[in-house]
């Protein structure tokens, strides 16, 4: 742990009483010897929705790729379920950790059900496509993402929000405990953003999943996430529980904006994070120090 500036890392142990499912220690990663993620240590516990935020190019996506094993760390290591990520066999890893990159893209003509079925691949036996658990998992994932009416529609015909839900349904069909999502809400309108966030939040509460989401909408992150992981220039600027005024000053520094709490939003709907519902307004800082 080299980061002394993790100012608001107040109570990581109290916040995660149970053993972390995914744990990164002193992680460095990048492309062609260019270090994009530097010395990041973080944890993801069951039942937790973790928001990963930070300015563009700060290494959020690279961090997620490293955590999901798409990219080899140049230093440090990732531990999944108490064992080094690279020591799991590929299907074993995929049964424990699901991840979705930023702009996934499916072949022409593929239907929603075809896609969700792909999520069962890590559970498949040698030369066997379908198992009796598969049908159940697929139906459940489809129902949870409310895709029942769309199962036989080609993905190309769906709206952006519906397509995103179909991809998430695929990862849910994997039935893994850990789920890492890279900007699942970025291209969606507000209604579909809420759909996706409610869905993810419900998964952490009902199925005890550990979910990390990269996102740009800070108000949305504050409303739904249990904890924020703020990244800045490849490093971890801080991990903080939501309701914390020190969070605001951290955000001010990292994004170079001024943060103003403008409204106390009405209490979150039932099942949503009981945490704070502050509405923040951001302005570009005028006088740079």
């Amino acid at each position, binding site marked *: 742990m080299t980061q002394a500036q993790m100012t608001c890392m107040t109570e990581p142990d109290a916040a995660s009483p149970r053993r972390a499912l995914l744990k990164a220690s002193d992680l460095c990663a990048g492309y062609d010897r260019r270090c994009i993620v530097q010395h990041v240590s973080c944890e993801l516990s069951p039942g937790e929705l973790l928001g990963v935020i930070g300015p563009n190019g700060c290494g959020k996506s690279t961090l997620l790729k490293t955590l999901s094993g798409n990219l*080899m760390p140049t230093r440090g290591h990732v531990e999944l379920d108490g064992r080094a990520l690279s020591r799991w066999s*590929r*299907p074993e890893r*995929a049964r424990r*950790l699901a991840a979705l990159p930023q702009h996934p893209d499916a072949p022409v003509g593929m239907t929603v059900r075809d896609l969700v079925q792909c999520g069962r*691949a890590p559970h498949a036996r040698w030369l066997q496509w379908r198992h009796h658990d598969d049908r159940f998992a697929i139906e459940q994932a489809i129902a949870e993402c*409310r895709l029942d*009416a769309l199962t036989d529609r080609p993905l190309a015909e769906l709206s952006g929000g519906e397509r995103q839900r179909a991809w998430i349904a695929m990862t849910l069909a994997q039935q893994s405990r850990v789920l890492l999502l890279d900007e699942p809400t970025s291209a969606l309108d507000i209604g579909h953003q809420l*759909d996706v966030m409610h869905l993810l939040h419900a998964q952490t509460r009902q199925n005890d999943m550990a979910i990390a989401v990269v996102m740009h909408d800070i108000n949305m992150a504050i409303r739904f996430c249990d904890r924020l992981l703020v990244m800045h220039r490849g490093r971890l600027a801080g991990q903080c529980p939501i309701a914390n005024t020190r969070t605001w000053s951290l955000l001010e520094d990292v994004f170079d904006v001024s943060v103003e709490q403008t409204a106390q939003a009405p209490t979150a709907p039932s099942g949503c994070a009981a945490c704070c519902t502050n509405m923040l307004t951001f302005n570009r800082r005028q006088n740079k120090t």
Partner: protein
Amino acid sequence: MTTAASQLHPAAERAGADKAKSQVPALTITLIALGLLLAAGMLVSLGVGGHNMTIGQVVDAIALRWQTDAWAQSPDATIVWNLRMPRTLLAAMVGVNLSIAGVLLQGIMRNPLASPDIIGVTAGAALAATIMIVAVPPMMVASGLGLLTLPLAAFVGAMAVSVVVFALSWQPGVGTSAVRMILAGVAVSAMLGGFQGFLMVYFADRVQGVVLWLAGSLNTRSWHHVTLVAPCLLIGLGLAAMLIRPLNLLQLGEAVAHNLGVHVNLTRMAAIITASLLTGSAVCAVGVIGFVGLIIPHIMRLTVGHTHGRLMPAAMLAGAVMLVWADIGARVLGEMPVGVLTAMIGGPYFVALLYGRKLT
């Protein structure tokens, strides 16, 4: 939970369901139609040539095989069994090899342009064969002494090039990427093509055999060639069948496939080696036959869809059908090299497809 705007669209939903249901019969119908075309093509192929026979004569000639005395005397039986049967079987097998190689390569590259010709496997086989023909004087002609030496050289050339292409596309820490593989294949192909041109100009007096071989011909192929290709075909098909699931998942992109537990680089390597095995054995037996590996997978994808479990059997039959009928055409037109015919028919057909429908 918020009530989302996920309204039912009954009509669209029904259309989607119909589409999904109609896919399986489409596959069955396609397979049956292709199977019939193949059977008919093989029968016709046994009867057509310098000495034309009716279907009845062909069947009689085939049956003669089991009557030991009559078999030796009948010229029909000799022609059917020793000349046309191996040729027909070889045409079908080469068609299968090339189209499955195309399916595999297009599958791992997720690129519609990928084919055995693009990634340099064909060029490698051709160059190795050319070197054998021009550099080793006793084997100036493809047939004769070098009956097995030439195919083996071509095969080694194909495999060597596939390894080189794979190695060139490898990036430390990241592995391979589809684009790098195609670029490496194109570059290596161009390089080998240049060297091939040099050899053909420099040894202009000896390249007669090379020219014929490069055009791809099924003429004068014997049971030797069949026994050479058959094991490669069986091994290749077995490997291809094992790659069906990872290939399907790879269609979702490298990252998603990795997250679903697919060993992306291993799948790529296995597919390249399998494709080289299939292409190499085909090229070494009959020379360069272009376009089959490129267009058959495309046409079949339009008919039976993207899933490799459906695509592979359909492409297999379609490739065999295309080559058997192209060989018949080549024979009717007076022993034209079959590679010339596949390119001449395949090219315009491909263009027509490109303009008629969305070909992606």
